[in-house]
């Protein structure tokens, strides 16, 4: 069947706004329009928010593409990549463009088309202008010379990176968000970076002066020099190289290169050239229509109700409205403006800012919290009990809640501190249930809670799958922890049985609520949990899980009731099929001595041990031991417990490493011994089996261990997490590469503590690492993006210090009868009248 000819839609601009509106339109009506797009850059569409990652080399350019060129083909969108649209011929209803010269700057004003090249013409029924903005260069002398740069495109990043190779010092003009991101990027290229801001403080659009000062201190701690109130008048060069900058106040700063990132201005050239109404930007109505009813516009190039927006959220809203209007799905859809709030990371520092940054009148209520040592500053401005503005710097855990109150204009809770501090760990799960469906979770890609929950219900079981289905979490990734929480909260939402969410079957609470209640009531024993939270009814199947949770919550204050332990943990040995036990003493890294072996042999003979077996973990197992013999055997062995019976650090295998092996490049034995001595007995949600390998040949199977360290050439060690070679086989994920044994111990300890705190009971590391994601772990544990590391290091140290060899109970049982054999009872042939 032949369909009526599709209407022709031409989109000018292939940035975040242009590509997004096309996606929205295709989602509503895939065949309604013949779509042609003009993009001045010779690429598909990429996530401009992530450019700083390209500059600092944490992401490759290919990794930030949202829609690669193939996407356009698949969706039958004609993309004129590298072609700049110059004019809309409104009489002929044709958009006219020219291919750009190879090295032309795509956002520069004016015609930089290839000379003599025929113009590209695209006829239209409708046009959407999404030209975005270009960097603003404040008036100064010398900009444009070699060594001066702007920071707006992938090509800009590459030019900056290339030039920085020969530089010692770099200056960034502009201390706003983009300027700081440029500074962060430059740091990774080994140059000394100075940030020069004209205003008296950093990030004046998002922060108040005090927050600006806190950020300045944090930045200086990272090695960036920050100078405020510096207005650059001259960029001075000698012999084709920049030497220094001159400021209005007469001072100067030496530098070898300059990146200008001092704000943006809307690109309106084509609208002006085509006779559309342009004020500060292209003027649009609530349906995103310009002064020509066939021409629409959205994004940073428009002025709506007198306002220009420079953030991503308004674009997502505008794209939805425009798609509704243009496809006829809802011709009356209206964009009513955006309340601006943003949560982002500046140089790895968490920041959320919304609304006003300072009080407008004395009746405004201002709540401030300062913690300079951690670089934390929080401020909330309330007007008539509603949030009028907020700044969260350095710690943003209450940002979603604040954003919700701010966007919705709803009354804030009376206890203002609830707005500043997240409740005790775990309670956050309640919050994700409380979030409204419309709350935007991923700000980079404009994905709300409902879309994510729908994806989870549709079967997306991991952050990565949710990302490929909804794009959520694929941008700056700062929303990933929330997605993880949503995943946990809604994973089983399809099933009607709420009890599936209970942490243990016998207490009707999810983990978060359970933790909150335990903390609130200061419950330190398993029996008290039943007494207070389960109506006094004990549940045998819940005891062990509760014990594990309480121990991790209270550590030293935990009241250890031995009946809440599994038999193995009561007697520190592994029960066997005939009711006897196995005894595996610790043999650090599998290295033993003749005298140790002799002692083992003597014990085995004396106690008539039925089997002596070498284990898979490079140790020796004495099998078939009677419970009552355990204390004697331990004492005669004189070796500590190998913990081969419990949910804890088990062992660290090693290969012979550098001592004897011809291939070894790292001392795997010494490392494994250090690991085992440090972490022996550390309890965890499930067992942890480790290994170290002296070279990538992996003889000790370190790649497939819960934690593994593999030596590589150059004295380095790779640390792998979440490997498995049991019922599940999985190669571990590389966390990081370090230079020393000490660093291996540091990062392994950090991971263990994080796993102890966040793993579910009986969740092996390979499930945990998959659930959280190695990228998130790397950010948390290596880059310390959430500022957790110091605490994790301290807490694992506490656990290490608290280690006591459980076999010491041999001489002093924890309770009478701990190692008692069944007792022979004498039958009294006494009769009792039972009538």
């Amino acid at each position, binding site marked *: 069947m032949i369909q009526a000819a599709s209407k022709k839609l031409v989109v000018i601009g292939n940035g975040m706004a242009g590509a997004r509106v096309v996606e929205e339109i295709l989602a509503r009506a895939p065949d309604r329009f013949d779509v042609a797009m003009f993009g001045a850059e010779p690429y598909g569409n990429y996530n401009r928010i992530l450019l700083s990652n390209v500059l600092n080399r944490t992401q490759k350019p290919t990794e930030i593409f949202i829609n690669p060129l193939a996407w356009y083909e698949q969706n039958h969108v004609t993309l004129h990549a590298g072609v700049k649209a110059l004019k809309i011929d409104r009489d002929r209803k044709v958009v006219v463009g020219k291919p750009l010269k190879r090295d032309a700057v795509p956002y520069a004003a004016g015609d930089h088309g290839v000379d003599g090249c025929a113009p590209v013409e695209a006829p239209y029924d409708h046009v959407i202008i999404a030209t975005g903005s270009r960097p603003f260069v404040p008036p100064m002398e010398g900009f444009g010379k070699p060594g001066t740069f702007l920071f707006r495109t992938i090509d800009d990043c590459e030019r900056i990176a290339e030039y920085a190779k020969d530089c010692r010092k770099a200056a960034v003009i502009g201390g706003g968000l983009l300027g700081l991101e440029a500074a962060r990027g430059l740091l990774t290229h080994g140059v000394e970076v100075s940030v020069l801001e004209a205003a008296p403080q950093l990030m004046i659009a998002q922060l108040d002066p005090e927050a600006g000062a806190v950020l300045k201190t944090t930045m200086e701690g990272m090695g960036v020099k920050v100078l405020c109130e510096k207005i650059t008048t001259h960029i001075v060069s000698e012999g084709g190289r920049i030497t220094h900058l001159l400021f209005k106040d007469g001072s100067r700063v030496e530098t070898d290169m300059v990146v200008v990132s001092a704000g943006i201005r809307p690109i309106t050239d084509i609208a002006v050239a085509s006779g559309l109404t342009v004020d500060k930007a292209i003027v649009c109505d609530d349906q995103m229509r310009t002064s020509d009813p066939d021409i629409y516009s959205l994004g940073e190039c428009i002025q709506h109700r007198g306002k220009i927006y420079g953030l991503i959220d308004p674009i997502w809203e505008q794209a939805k409205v425009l798609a509704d209007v243009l496809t006829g799905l809802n011709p009356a859809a209206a964009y009513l403006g955006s309340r601006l709030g943003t949560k982002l990371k500046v140089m790895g520092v968490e920041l959320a800012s919304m609304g006003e940054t300072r009080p407008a009148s004395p009746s405004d209520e201002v709540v401030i919290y300062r913690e300079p040592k951690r670089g934390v500053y929080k401020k909330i401005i309330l007007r008539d009990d509603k949030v009028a503005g907020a700044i969260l710097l350095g710690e943003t855990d209450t940002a979603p809640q604040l954003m919700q109150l701010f966007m919705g204009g709803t009354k804030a809770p009376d206890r203002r501190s609830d707005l500043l501090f997240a409740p005790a760990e775990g309670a956050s799960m309640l919050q994700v249930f409380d979030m409204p469906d419309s709350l935007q979770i991923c700000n980079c890609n404009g994905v709300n809670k409902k879309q994510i929950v729908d994806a989870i219900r549709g079967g997306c079981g991991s952050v990565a799958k949710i990302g490929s289905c909804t794009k959520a979490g694929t941008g700056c990734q700062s929303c990933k922890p929330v997605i993880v929480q949503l995943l946990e909260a809604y994973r089983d939402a399809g099933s009607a049985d709420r009890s599936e969410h209970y942490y243990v079957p016998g207490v009707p609470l999810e983990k978060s609520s359970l933790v909150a209640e335990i903390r609130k009531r200061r419950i330190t024993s398993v029996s008290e949990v039943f007494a207070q939270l389960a109506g*006094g009814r004990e549940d*045998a*199947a819940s005891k062990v899980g509760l014990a594990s949770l309480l121990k991790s919550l209270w550590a030293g204050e935990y009241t250890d009731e031995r009946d809440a332990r599994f038999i193995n943990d009561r007697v520190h040995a592994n029960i066997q099929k005939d*009711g006897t036990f196995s005894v595996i003493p610790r043999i650090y890294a599998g290295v033993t001595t003749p005298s140790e072996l002799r002692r083992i042999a003597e014990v085995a003979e004396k106690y008539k041990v039925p089997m002596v077996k070498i284990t898979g973990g490079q140790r020796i197992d004495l099998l078939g031991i009677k419970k009552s013999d355990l204390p004697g055997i331990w004492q005669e062995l004189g070796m500590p417990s190998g913990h081969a019976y419990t949910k804890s650090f088990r062992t660290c295998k090693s290969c012979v490493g550098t001592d004897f092996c011809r291939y070894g490049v790292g001392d795997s034995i010494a490392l494994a011994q250090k690991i085992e001595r440090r972490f022996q007995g550390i309890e965890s949600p499930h067992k942890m089996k480790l290994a170290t390998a002296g070279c990538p040949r992996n003889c000790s199977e370190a790649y497939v261990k819960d934690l593994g360290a593999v030596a590589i050439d150059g004295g380095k060690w790779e640390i792998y997490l979440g490997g498995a070679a049991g019922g599940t086989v999985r190669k571990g994920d590389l966390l990081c590469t370090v230079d020393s044994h000490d660093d291996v111990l540091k990062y392994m300890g950090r991971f263990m503590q994080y796993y102890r705190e966040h793993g579910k009971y009986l969740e092996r590391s390979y499930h945990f690492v998959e659930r959280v994601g190695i990228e998130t772990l790397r950010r948390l544990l290596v880059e310390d993006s959430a500022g957790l590391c110091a605490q994790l290091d301290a807490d694992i140290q506490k656990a290490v210090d608290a280690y006591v060899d459980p076999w010491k109970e041999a001489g002093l049982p924890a309770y009478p*009868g701990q190692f008692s054999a069944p007792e022979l009872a004498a*039958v*009294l042939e*006494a*009769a009792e009248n039972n009538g």
Partner: protein
Amino acid sequence: MADTLRLVILGPVEKVPMGQGFCFIVGSEEIAVFRQRDGKIFATQNRCPHKQGPLSEGLSGGGVVICPFHSHKFDLCSGQGPDNEQLKVYSVKEKDGQLLLSLEPQP
């Protein structure tokens, strides 16, 4: 005529650690006695009908014991387990701090 029961004094109640089980050998039988934190006391055969796991080493509470071998669960009052597995149960009580077990009269 009144029933005649064989009575066994197992010893002080503290022989069974609080919240746990303990195995007594009575004649040729292994009998597990469980002492719950709420004061209730139960007695069953010690061996799990499934694979002979020692139930006295299992986790118990709320009138239930879980076998340490394969987590089969049994009601301590009735002896009822999964898949029609059935434990022998015995009457047991505390008197003057002593555990008294009654064995069914021999047929």
